[in-house]
């Protein structure tokens, strides 16, 4: 009697509902993070254990890396151009146009390149990854692997996460190049800055450490976004609808994770 009274009282009280909602949300976050960490450990352990399936690995390198080159080059070029145009109009006000080159270079190499490359990979490759793994899960193809004495984490997840870890830094380099080219194109041919000023100023202010910062961010983001896509797909359930929901959640989680990690890595490098 007392329990049911308590339950009905709780239902009537909106505050309890609110606290319950927040609590469930927090629990959900912890559950996801816990699941991701466990999966990350499994991926690392299975990555070092033989057999090594190089063919699967290279197929994922091709899918995640080579397949994203055009997209990353395009977004890189236009990001550089947009950034150069905007900073030109600001620097023009106090005659500091010569700083456009290094501004574009620093922003692109440290921030834009790793973040955008990871987001492009999330959009293009991780969505496909999550859907494919989710479909394999709900049609029992993952169970089939297991009953054939093939570890699904090693067979399916390791090559995908390694591809993210290795390919996003490479895509970051391509983004760097494309972004600088975009900035150069706006500043030099379009706005009339001299080639020498652009190159010299950029050379003076851009250090190898800035490029390393971007590349290491790229590696961390690449690992994270592919891991999240694999986690969501691998744990999908509930048929076609479940796979769709898993993909949506993977995209949202991956994008948010990139920005959160970016902030904390920024603190690590400059905090």
């Amino acid at each position, binding site marked *: 009697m007392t329990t049911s009274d308590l339950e009905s009282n709780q239902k009537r009280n909106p505050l309890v509902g609110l606290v319950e909602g927040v609590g469930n949300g927090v629990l959900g976050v912890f559950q996801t993070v816990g699941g991701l960490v466990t999966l990350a450990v499994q991926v690392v352990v299975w990555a070092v254990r033989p057999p090594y399936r190089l063919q699967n690995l290279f197929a994922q390198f091709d899918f995640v890396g080579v397949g994203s080159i055009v997209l990353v080059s395009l977004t890189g070029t236009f990001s550089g151009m947009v950034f150069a145009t905007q900073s030109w109009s600001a620097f023009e006000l106090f005659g500091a146009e010569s700083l456009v080159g290094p501004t574009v270079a620093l922003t692109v190499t440290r921030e834009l390149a790793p973040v955008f490359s990871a987001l492009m990979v999330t959009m293009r490759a991780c969505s496909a990854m999550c859907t*494919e793994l989710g479909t394999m899960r709900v*049609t029992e*193809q993952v169970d*089939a692997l297991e*009953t*054939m*004495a093939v570890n699904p984490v090693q067979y399916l997840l390791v090559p995908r996460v390694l591809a993210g870890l290795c390919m996003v830094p490479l895509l970051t380099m391509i983004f760097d190049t494309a972004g600088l080219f975009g900035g150069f194109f706006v500043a030099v041919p379009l706005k009339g800055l001299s080639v020498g000023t652009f190159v010299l100023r950029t050379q003076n202010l851009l250090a190898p450490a800035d490029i390393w910062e971007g590349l290491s961010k790229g590696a961390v983001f690449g690992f994270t976004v592919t891991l999240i896509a694999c986690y969501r797909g691998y744990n999908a359930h509930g048929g076609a609808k479940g796979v769709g929901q898993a993909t949506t959640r993977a995209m949202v989680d991956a994008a948010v994770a990139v920005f959160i990690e970016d902030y904390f890595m920024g603190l690590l490098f400059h905090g």
Partner: protein
Amino acid sequence: MSAEPRKPPMISVQDLWKSFGDNQVLTGINLDIEEGSTCVILGGSGSGKTVLMKHMIGLLKPDRGKVIVDGEDVVPMDDRQLEIVRRKFGMVFQGAALFDSMTVYENVSFALREHSTLSEEEIRAKVREKLGIVGLSNIEERYPAELSGGMRKRVGLARAIVLDPKIVLYDEPTTGLDPITTDYVDDMILTAKSELEVTQVVISHDIASSFKVADKVAFLFKGKIVAEGPSKELRHNPHPELQHFLQMWFGKGG
């Protein structure tokens, strides 16, 4: 014949208990499956059939009890030991679970590439042989999406038997199939028994099909095997739940 010493069963489940949270799924299962026989585990949905089968292959660990497969208890085994035991099994899934990014040939040859060092020619010969056993030819380059439901099941069986397992498990092999395809799948199970001499375990709620293929039927109800025996005997078993279940089919069929 009676003078022959009795062989130990290929699979022996002893006092198996399993719960998920508060939900008791298996409550003391005892079941012996003889080598070379076909045993159907019959039961309605939620009776614990799939959970029982997952214990046989070591995909789930019980709360207590033993599952002895070919003389070894799989319950205390770690992942590596389980991988070795799993090679004794071939499994045919409800929806065939063929890898849809691979051709029929790649599907059937998958386990050979993973677990053997055969040359490409030997692999091809083996794949042809297994596809031949299940009555299929000239479909090696097709993708699963291009096959009918019955053909997919047959390819699933060819993939399951490619490593010459001792035991073949079938998960609801006739669920959702039309009567003609159901017949086709039943014949497939009977052919596998006569040609391969393997021990077969079929999980099913399809009464007609179960009675057709089984040497022994075990009726699972609320986590317990409440009746078991050869199909003819089982039909006359007085257990009320079994009779109620059988009534659904035989009552309808007249």
